[in-house]
């Protein structure tokens, strides 16, 4: 451990923001280079290495670009900056926690986890309403309240009062936030929708069931004592009947002035909208309402809002899924005292691009620098290859589409099996274990696996089995569901219609404006890599195994930690909430028969009387098939072998024969003896039942190590360096 102090640095083979620097660009031309210099490595780390999700957001600033397309009269969104559109016409929408859709998704995840509810029990619709204009307006109301409160205070204070200046600072900040929307028609849309609704239906949106216009009245007792609500005498305006005062007039003036100053092309309609939004009380100078125009506006705004939100979600969803994956990678590492914190190096380049012949030398040179040196600080141990294409064989050929069915998804953000094989071939030379998961779709979720089993996935992984790189390929299944496809509907609002009673919200089913998110998922590879990376940290293991009274040696990484052994999976589990009730015995038998893949389980389990509501790891295998045992090999064997080879190379000064002998000698100071002394620990390198032997073939100068894990041997050959020893 004093030598190798990290065994969990992970390379993510995916793009987050194509506008930011990527691994290929940073590595640059490698002609004639064996490795990169330290300055270059520092630069790469500066741009691509992240130690937390916040750092990812900061370094990669994920963004969606929006622009208006006059031809189709709609808003378009794109992840890649369109080169043909002038900068001034592009609006970048940062995809961070303050973005409305991401907020909604995170809320879903947090509340589901807090409630410990399974997918079937959780009310997704409720949380997802967050993206409707109604909820947007709610947030603005909060801002509005603050502005009013602070402005009131501000106007009451005397000139020259230092407190007035403090208030001024606060107001400046609030106005700054509010003014961001002035220029942005899209951001103004929900305001306009709600504004019209408020004016026509007297805040119907705020009251449950209020769908028609209200006529203000006065409660009185009739001649015969009956209760009556009499229509109040009409005023000139239809503005809300609220008390006006000087404060509001002042505030209105300030907002109006601010809008004029900030906006390049001020427009009366938007000006009034802004004023009404941030200062909506009776003081608005509305003289008359053309109900029909307003209703038409409302309907077209709502339609436009729905279409653009729908377009936005379609574009942002894949990016968001990636970001959620990264978030979950880091989230797996939850421990009180931090030790070996997982690090993620984001290549920020499509793996398809990386796998091209022309680009592979760059990757090779980079890995040569990180993994072929005796400096283990930057060694890459794992890689994540998400979104492997799920090419579906069409079995039911349909002659005529009688009903509207699913459009065949031609995803551009899925990556091919071929590119994965090419990259694995390179990564195996540097002993990088690669977690891969199939693309996010209903067929790869817990639901589908529970229903259909893993046969399909085994078949799809067949091209990667029986290859020299199979040992380094870890298929992860299933993917996690954040919002299931069938519960992804969001009701935005209903259309309005003009009737004899004036404007009212339509009750008709077709007038309810809904949009469908069509499911949000997280690739299993992120979670598996994050969890495995977390398990490398001795502090993490200690936290989770104290309950089981297991010993942990804080100087050793968790390379030999076998999640499948004993109750380990019930003591260390993921942070993901349970999704389904579990797999059937039949499917579990199928998984156990071949011991295939890195499989997560959403099973009912309890340990020591405590129910486990999280998802656990059921299997942790790679694609190296052991025909003797008819099963795939556990992942820890590969990492222990890698770890021992690296330590051995270091300790023996690049495999000097005498030093190898010392390494395995019975001297209590030898590396082997020191490992054996810790064999009772949960993170021991050699545990009870394991053994490590070596034999040197003098003729060929090869030292063969035989590492037996509970009797099943693994061989490792190293070429002895005899330059000084003989």
């Amino acid at each position, binding site marked *: 451990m004093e030598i190798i102090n990290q065994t969990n640095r992970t390379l993510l083979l995916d793009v987050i923001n194509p506008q930011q620097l990527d691994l290929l660009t940073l590595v640059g031309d*490698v*002609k*004639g*280079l*064996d490795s990169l210099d330290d300055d270059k490595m520092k630069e790469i780390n500066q741009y691509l290495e992240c130690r937390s999700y916040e750092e990812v957001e900061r370094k990669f600033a994920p963004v969606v670009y929006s622009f208006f397309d006059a031809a189709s009269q709609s808003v378009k969104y794109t992840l890649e900056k369109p080169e043909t559109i002038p900068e001034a016409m592009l609006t970048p929408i940062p995809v961070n926690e303050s973005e409305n859709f991401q907020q909604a998704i995170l809320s879903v995840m947090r509340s589901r986890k807090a409630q410990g509810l399974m997918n079937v029990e959780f009310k997704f619709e409720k949380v997802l309403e967050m993206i409707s204009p109604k909820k947007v307006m709610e947030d603005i109301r909060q801002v509005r309240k603050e502005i009013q409160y602070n402005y009131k205070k501000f106007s009451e204070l005397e000139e020259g009062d230092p407190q007035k200046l403090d208030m001024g600072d606060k107001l400046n900040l609030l106005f700054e936030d509010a003014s961001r929307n002035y220029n942005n028609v899209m951001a103004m849309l929900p305001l306009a929708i709600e504004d019209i609704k408020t004016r026509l239906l007297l805040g119907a949106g705020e009251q449950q069931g209020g769908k028609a216009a209200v006529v203000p009245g006065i409660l009185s007792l009739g001649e015969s004592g009956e209760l009556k609500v009499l229509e109040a005498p009409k005023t000139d305006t239809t503005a809300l009947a609220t008390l006006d005062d000087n404060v509001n007039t002042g505030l209105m003036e300030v907002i109006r002035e601010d809008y004029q100053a900030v906006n390049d092309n001020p427009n009366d309609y938007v000006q009034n909208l802004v004023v009404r939004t941030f200062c909506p009380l009776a003081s608005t100078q509305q003289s008359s309402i053309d109900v029909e125009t307003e209703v038409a506006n409302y309907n077209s705004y709502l339609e436009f809002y729905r279409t653009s939100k729908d377009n936005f979600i379609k574009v942002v969803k894949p990016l968001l899924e990636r970001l959620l994956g990264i978030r979950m990678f880091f989230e797996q590492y939850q421990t009180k005292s931090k030790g070996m914190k997982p690090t993620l190096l984001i290549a920020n380049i499509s793996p398809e691009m990386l796998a*091209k*012949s*022309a*680009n*592979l*030398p760059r990757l*090779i*040179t980079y890995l*040569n620098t990180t993994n*072929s040196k005796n400096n283990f600080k930057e060694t890459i141990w794992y890689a994540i290859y998400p979104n492997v294409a799920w090419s579906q064989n069409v079995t039911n050929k349909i002659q005529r589409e009688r009903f509207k069915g699913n459009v065949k998804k031609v995803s551009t953000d899925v990556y091919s099996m071929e590119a994965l094989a*090419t990259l694995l*071939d*390179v990564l195996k*030379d540097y002993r990088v274990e690669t977690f891969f998961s199939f693309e996010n779709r209903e067929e790869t979720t817990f639901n589908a696996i529970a229903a259909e089993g893993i046969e399909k996935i085994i078949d799809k992984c067949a091209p990667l089995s029986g290859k020299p790189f199979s040992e380094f390929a870890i298929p992860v299944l299933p993917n996690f569901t954040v919002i299931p496809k069938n519960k992804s509907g969001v009701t935005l609002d209903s259309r309005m219609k003009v009737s004899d009673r004036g404007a009212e919200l339509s009750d008709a089913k077709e007038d309810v404006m809904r949009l469908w998110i069509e499911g949000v998922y997280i690739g299993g590879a992120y979670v598996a890599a994050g969890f495995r990376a977390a398990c490398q940290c001795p502090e993490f293991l200690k936290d989770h195994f104290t309950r089981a009274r297991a010993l942990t040696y804080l100087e050793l990484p968790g390379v030999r930690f076998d999640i499948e052994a004993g109750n380990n999976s019930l003591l260390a589990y993921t942070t993901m909430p349970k999704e389904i009730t579990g797999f059937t015995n039949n499917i579990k038998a199928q998984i156990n028969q071949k011991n295939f893949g890195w499989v997560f389980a959403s099973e009912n389990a309890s340990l020591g009387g405590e129910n486990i509501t999280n998802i656990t790891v059921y299997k942790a295998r790679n694609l190296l098939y052991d025909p003797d045992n008819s099963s795939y090999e556990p992942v820890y064997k590969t990492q222990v072998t890698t770890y021992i080879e690296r330590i051995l190379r270091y300790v023996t000064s690049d495999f000097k024969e005498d030093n190898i002998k010392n390494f395995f000698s019975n001297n209590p100071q030898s590396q082997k003896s020191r490992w054996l002394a810790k064999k009772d620990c949960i993170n021991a390198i050699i545990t009870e039942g394991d053994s490590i032997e070596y034999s040197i073939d003098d003729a060929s100068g090869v030292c063969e190590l035989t590492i037996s894990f509970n009797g099943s041997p693994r061989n490792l050959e190293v*070429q002895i360096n005899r330059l000084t020893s003989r």
Partner: protein
Amino acid sequence: MKKGNSGCLFLLAGIFLAVFLKCSVPVCVCAAEPQDAENPQCVVMFVLDASSSMKTSDPDRLAPDGIAQLVYTLPTGSRAGFVAFNTGIPAEQIPVSGKEREAVPEAAEEVEYTGYSDAGAGLSRAVEILAGEDAAERQIVLLSDGEILMDSDEATAESRKSYREAAGEAAEEGIRIHVISLGTGTEDEESSVSAAAELTGGRVCAAPQATDIQEALDSILTEEIGVKQSTVALVDAGGGIETVHAQLPYTYADKVRVLLTGTAPVENLSANFQAQSAEQISGERYSLIELNRLHGQDTENGRKLEISFSGTKGSRVRVNVIPEYCAVPVVEVVYRDERPAEPDTAKSAALPPDKTGQELPGVYRRTAEITFSFSDPENQRTLLWEEAFFENGRIKVTVDGEETALSLHGGRIVLERPVYRTEEILAELDYSGLPVNVRGDREVRIGLEGPPELPVEEEEEPSYIRAVFPAAGLGLLAAAAAGAAVCYMRVLRRRQEERAGAEAGNQPKEAACGAEKDSFRFAGRLNLYITQAQSGDDYPPLSYSLLRLPEGSMISLGEILERCGVTERFPGAEAVFFQPGNDRSLIVTNNSDSTVMKNREILMKNRQCALLFDGKMDITFEDEVSELMFQYKE
């Protein structure tokens, strides 16, 4: 080292085998004195059209500039002369050598473009001058815009006639005429000056633009005059100071000329080197640095050259190196005597006869092993061309009209020749197969001793044998001991040199790799990544297992690509070879003009290097477009 050892082995074998069948005796070690360059290898006459039409074809007077460039780049011993023609002959300079050659560019520079073009008079004068020169090669380089034109038709016809006659005379004299045709030339075949080139077996180079003269001269210099030069850098000037570092492989070179030619003038030239003396000459489009005897050439540092210059933005500057050696052949003869297999006359008559047509009966069959090594005239102990760069370089040796091409190994060539009697032979050496320019002796006289008589059969004269054999044995033993001593000294010296070379980082690996390459087996595989192809195709990564190849064999990169199913041709791939080395290394030999890089170092042409597991190399092929990276994996 191997050769020295084998010499010793022959000697020792001789001592023992003398009693039985064979005997071998080292006889003479001779070294000739360097020959004075009185008989130059080459005389070049420049004939320049100075008519007024040249003002249009060569407005910037690049032709005189080009002549100057060529004169300075000619090998030291060559002579150069000059004739200009317009209506008459405004300037001429008889061929001169050495420093005096400066007169040629000076004369060319002074010529003004005016009047008509009497090419007949110009060429006649040039041929006349050359006819009086005694040299192995006599050549004329004629620069003209192509047409013979005088003030009257009669005069034109007269000039044409004398032009044809002069060309005919040149052809008879063995003088070759190369024509650089400026401008668009003429369609009138009769008036064209290029006919002379065809008649004399010369070359016609078209230079549609005056700026193409340089290229034309360059091709004549390399391909016709046979000057060896190599390009060390092609720099696309960015307007600022450009620096070129070159590691010259020319140990013990007498002169190294560095020639910078550009499409626009080169300025602020400065060079960093260690040499006995140096000279810099600059023209409109060229700059030349002549370095005499680089200091510390036997060390890597001594052969380092750093040049910096500023070129006009957008122009391309070519940096060429022209190495010149002065060599004195050193000859060593070792005889190998064998008793004729069947002493009966019928059989011996069937053996190849000597000059008299008869192999003498009663004598040994003697083969002379003539080893040529080459020393530096300034320090005869210094042997040339022992480095790997010269390995396998060809030197032609002509004896009695019989030409044999021999390969250099460790700086030596060995010629085997049967000896039937004592004689003196004249060996002519041709160094044109070497990658460098060589001056010095090309003829060596070697005295060969005839074969000794066969001993008399024991059963016939036992007493004689008893008396003669010990004496003969002793004599042979003494001679063998002397030879052994010479050999031992050579071996010793060579070992010392190699050790010194190894200490100075002088390719110890290559020597070690090359020595016993045949006994190693291939290991591992090659992962190939074609990063750029001429066709623009994207090739998936390729892998080729070397294990299946037979022991000690050699395979080219081209062949590997073909076996991997790549049909596209990568120029130069067929001349990059792989063979197994010790410790499971892979020896890569670059015999191509491709740029082969390993760890930021270029593997020069005709050099080898060892690649260990996980080692990688990058190749930019000869087309300067296609590129490939390969990694040697376990």
